[in-house]
């Protein structure tokens, strides 16, 4: 259940979320929407690979796709969308170039790495969940924290910063709430990874599942204005 249904649900929610974001991109444009759409597709691929591994067992291609999209790239690409939203265009473009180069380097390293699935049962993992421990070749897993550092800083930091700006100006309450939900949702997969290393089975998949739900709700909240009359009435109480 934990290793099949939850990642499958995460994947379905992610692809649905990606469809809504990309539909909005087609209607309104905005590079941030395109990158968030790509990032949520990566999230969905990661979830699908976890489901596949739980349901059908080990497959090297599935593992490589999971590591590349689910462990290495997803946070950084989502965060890059936020960079396009908040930073100057020339800085965002410069970081985008670095991210694309880094992503292709990661693709090369992941798809040329030697794998040993028996190693997934070590290091606090049960072996029933996908884990980077299966990668034998050096120089692959060390890439992950750098991508995730950038992704966490930009996605969580950017959402929290946006919420702070709206709160300070006391405008657009729906965007304050939406950005808070996005910031919290983005931290949950990271916490899932930490708890997973503390021998809590299913923690990573649960973190990813709850994370994508909060990200989805946060996006819908941030893009759906609240009724002014309702807000004003509550404010006057």
């Amino acid at each position, binding site marked *: 259940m934990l290793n099949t249904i939850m990642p499958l649900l995460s994947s379905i929610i992610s692809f649905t979320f990606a469809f809504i974001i990309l539909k909005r991109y087609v209607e309104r444009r905005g590079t941030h929407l395109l990158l968030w759409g790509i990032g949520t597709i990566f999230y969905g691929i990661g979830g699908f690979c976890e489901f596949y591994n739980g349901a059908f067992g080990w497959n090297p291609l599935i593992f490589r796709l999971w590591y590349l999209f689910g462990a290495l790239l997803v946070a950084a690409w989502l965060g890059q969308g936020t960079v396009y939203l908040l930073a100057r265009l020339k800085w965002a473009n410069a970081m985008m170039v670095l991210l694309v180069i880094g992503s292709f380097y990661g693709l090369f390293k992941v798809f040329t790495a030697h794998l040993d699935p028996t190693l997934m049962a070590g290091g606090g993992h049960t072996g029933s969940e996908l884990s980077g421990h299966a990668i034998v070749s050096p120089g692959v897993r*060390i890439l992950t*924290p750098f991508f995730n*550092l950038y992704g966490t800083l930009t996605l969580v930091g950017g959402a*929290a910063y946006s919420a702070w700006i709206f*709160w300070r100006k006391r405008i657009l309450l729906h965007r*304050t709430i939406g950005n808070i939900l996005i910031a919290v949702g983005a931290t949950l997969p990271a916490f899932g990874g930490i708890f997973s290393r503390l021998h809590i089975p299913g923690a990573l998949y649960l973190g990813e599942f709850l994370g994508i739900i909060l990200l989805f709700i946060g996006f819908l909240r941030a893009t759906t204005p609240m009724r002014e009359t309702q807000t004003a009435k509550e404010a006057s109480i």
Partner: protein
Amino acid sequence: MDKKHMRQYPAFYERIVPVILVIIGVILIILLAITIGVAIGLVPGTA
């Protein structure tokens, strides 16, 4: 009219938003510390 009082969020949000933002800030610092720890080898590798 004092500009500060021109616009306000509902009372619930006035109280809860800054608290949550501070908590998110602390969590972000912890996550970044762990991630940097992993990157420089002080913390065992994640995924």
